[in-house]
């Protein structure tokens, strides 16, 4: 039981962390974010299901199409819901991205149907048994791929010239703009990357959860909780908070009840914010007078 909970906690936690990194990426470049991150996760799962199960495409082709669509979703959100409100004082982008998300959910419902469906995966056929615990290979695969992707994101930002440019935009948009970095394109890239990560999480999670148009909201909110707990400005904080949240959730669900899982998880966010208003590893922003 114990091992089983750890494995599934790490699997889910890694995905929360991955999706939460998406919030961090756009927040850092533009001080805005896509409140419909969860719907990008849903889009990844639904499109993967439709192409693999529905159309019977080979997995690599389906994956490429799915990820392209997810990144496109990010670009679309940025164009429709974020850019017009970029300089608005009130968080108008918060509401406009939510609007895009509920439209996306409805579109998925019309195309896919309302029912939840199981996504077959070669890694969820036979469980691995260790002692009394049983878990699927997929649950081991997910956190490994998740960690690998996080490392890739880190390398992109720290090793590649374009990643460094995005970092510069995050640090000081004005100076970065003066250095010749195209800010709108940087923001768009951040949104595409952010939705891409969410789409991958959708594909990875699809075999473990049921695929349904409504699956996005709660995953997006939990990932948002993780981003807030870790600190929106701190990628390491978010990765740690992701695994922590996944483990706590898994243990509460295992030992108490699945309903208590949500109560404990979200109460934890409020508690963290009361004690550390800018997240566990986030920096308190300087007050501007």
């Amino acid at each position, binding site marked *: 039981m114990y091992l089983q909970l750890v494995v599934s906690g790490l699997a889910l936690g890694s995905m929360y962390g991955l999706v939460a990194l998406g919030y961090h990426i756009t927040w850092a470049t533009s001080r805005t974010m896509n409140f419909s991150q969860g719907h990008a996760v849903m889009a990844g799962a639904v499109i993967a299901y439709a192409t693999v199960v529905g159309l019977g495409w080979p997995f690599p082709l389906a994956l490429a199409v799915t990820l392209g669509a997810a990144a496109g979703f990010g670009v679309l959100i940025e164009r429709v819901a974020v850019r017009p409100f970029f300089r608005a004082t009130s968080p108008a982008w918060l509401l406009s991205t939510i*609007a895009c998300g509920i439209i996306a959910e409805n579109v998925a419902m019309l195309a896919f149907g309302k029912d939840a469906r199981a996504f077959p995966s070669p890694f969820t056929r036979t469980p691995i048994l260790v002692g009394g615990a049983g878990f699927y290979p997929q649950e081991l695969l997910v956190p490994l791929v998740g960690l690998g992707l996080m490392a890739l994101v880190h390398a992109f930002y720290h090793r590649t010239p374009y990643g460094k440019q995005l970092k510069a935009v995050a640090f000081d948009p004005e100076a970065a703009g003066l250095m010749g970095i195209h800010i709108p394109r940087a923001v768009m890239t951040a949104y595409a990357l952010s939705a891409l990560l969410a789409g991958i999480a959708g594909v990875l999670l699809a075999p473990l959860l049921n695929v349904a148009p409504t699956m996005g909201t709660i995953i997006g909110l939990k990932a948002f909780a993780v981003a807030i707990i870790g600190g929106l400005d701190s990628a390491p904080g978010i990765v740690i908070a992701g695994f922590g949240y996944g483990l706590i959730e898994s243990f509460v669900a295992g030992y108490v009840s699945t309903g208590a899982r949500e109560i404990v998880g979200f109460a934890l966010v409020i508690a963290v*914010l009361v004690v550390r208003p800018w997240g566990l590893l986030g920096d308190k922003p300087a007050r501007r007078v």
Partner: protein
Amino acid sequence: MNRARVARVAWIVLAAAAVALPLSTANTYYLYLACSVGLLTVVTAGLNVLAGLTGQISLGHAGFYALGAYGAAVGATRLGWPLWLAAMTGIVLAAGVGALVAAAALRVSGPYLAMVTIAFGIIVESVLVEWVSVTGGPGGIFRIPKVPLGRYYWAIAVSAAAALWLTANLRRSAWGRAFLAVKASEVAAESLGLSAYHVRIVAFTVSAAFTGVAGALFAFLNGYISPDSFTLQTSILFLLALLFGGMGSVAGPVVGSAALTLLPELLTALSDYRLILYGSLLLVSMYWLPSGLVGALARGPARARPTGSPTREEPWRFSASIWEHGAPDPLLSATGVGLSFGGVVAVADVSLAIQPRRIHAIIGPNGAGKTSLLNVLTGYYAPDTGGITLGGLSIVGLPPYRIARLGVARTFQTTQLFGDLTVRENVAVGLAGGHLGSICAALLGTPRARRVEAARMRDADSLLVAMGFIELADRPANSLPGGIRRRVEIARALAGRPEILMLDEPAAGLSPVEIEALDAELSALRDGGGPAIILVEHHMDLVMAVSDTISVLDYGRVIASGSPESVRENPQVVEAYLGAGT
């Protein structure tokens, strides 16, 4: 017909329709729909206080709706209480929890605040599902006593009307101005003695209480409640109704509620597309209806009703010293104050003594630390080293609004007027400071609150007469040209009758004529027994003309201090300004 009359006619038509409906039909479907509009109006009127006036977004108000509904339902069914007592329980529960959530949530803003409200909503929803013994779990609570719809309609209609009336009163009160002030500029509001945190908590609690009222009414309207009615989507729908109707206007909630309740009913054939409809409406209102349907129908900026006429019987007196036996000297003293940001030293070992009724100028090259010093003296930054005393009491570590209440007022390098308020209202925020009175009195518009308010407006007018721009009293602050903005900001700072007034580059952007007027104003203030003035300024003619003492800052240090003549001759000062070797 002018806009005020159109609005009055619209209200009368609305009231007549609300009265005529139950008299002309007994169709329960129509009555139920009208009741739904009424309930949503109560919710959005409350949300309007939070989002429209203070500019905070909540994505968790379905939680307060649920607390109101379940409080009432549990009271009326399991405990067998009379309906009014059960309803009160739900409302008090929603308001009480609202205050608690606000205290936790409003320490943060933006996405962090959104997170807390979302988390609250989900926690409530999950508790409703899990706590089966009290809430009935996923199935909810059945057989809640109902009042015949024909009679209940009146209860809801009166509640909706009351909600609109209360929020209209609130907007015209000192609290309403404080809400708008905090929304426009938290920094400026705090400089006038308002605690932004406290003000926002009150707004949040009021909106939670309104939502709780609607929740309690909802329980007795339906006779059955379940967690499905209280999801994140419900919270989003509340916000959508407010945005679509018109945020910040009194009529917005009722228009938005009617639209959002009736539209899906008219389009039942499209029920599969409901979310697309909501999402598109939300986007449409954000793109093209920034002030909602109400704003689109009534174009042009809202004309504030003139709130008083200039009274010349009581000329404004600038002095109202809180010191009984003459002001202490020095009034304000700083010793060894230092401040650095990371490795950058902004202020180093600065000592100052500010004497009552004197003008003390602080000059220095750009980046010398002048504004940083003001921000330390007014509490916006805590000094790393050194001490600051005001009338002998240490003020280090006090928040800006506390220092403001002790008699320190200031203006800002970039003027921070409250744009949605008129000039008179801007000054009235300064007059009230932290004394906002009771929120209940403000909501009810009690005669006493109205008297205090009328007196305050007369005071504001005398100050505007004294400052010489009474004719601008009813102009919204964001419509003013730059020079006037600076002078209104000074008037607003003077309104609280401060002991010390700190002006941060008041002459920046002024024309030569305006600078002369400023020169005369500052001298008149000093000679008329006004506050001590700390003047941060680049305009040397002005500084030399009005100052009693000048301190020169360079690289965060005081390099010279003394009379204008001595400073002008000081070789170090010449070097700082003109560079070495001259």
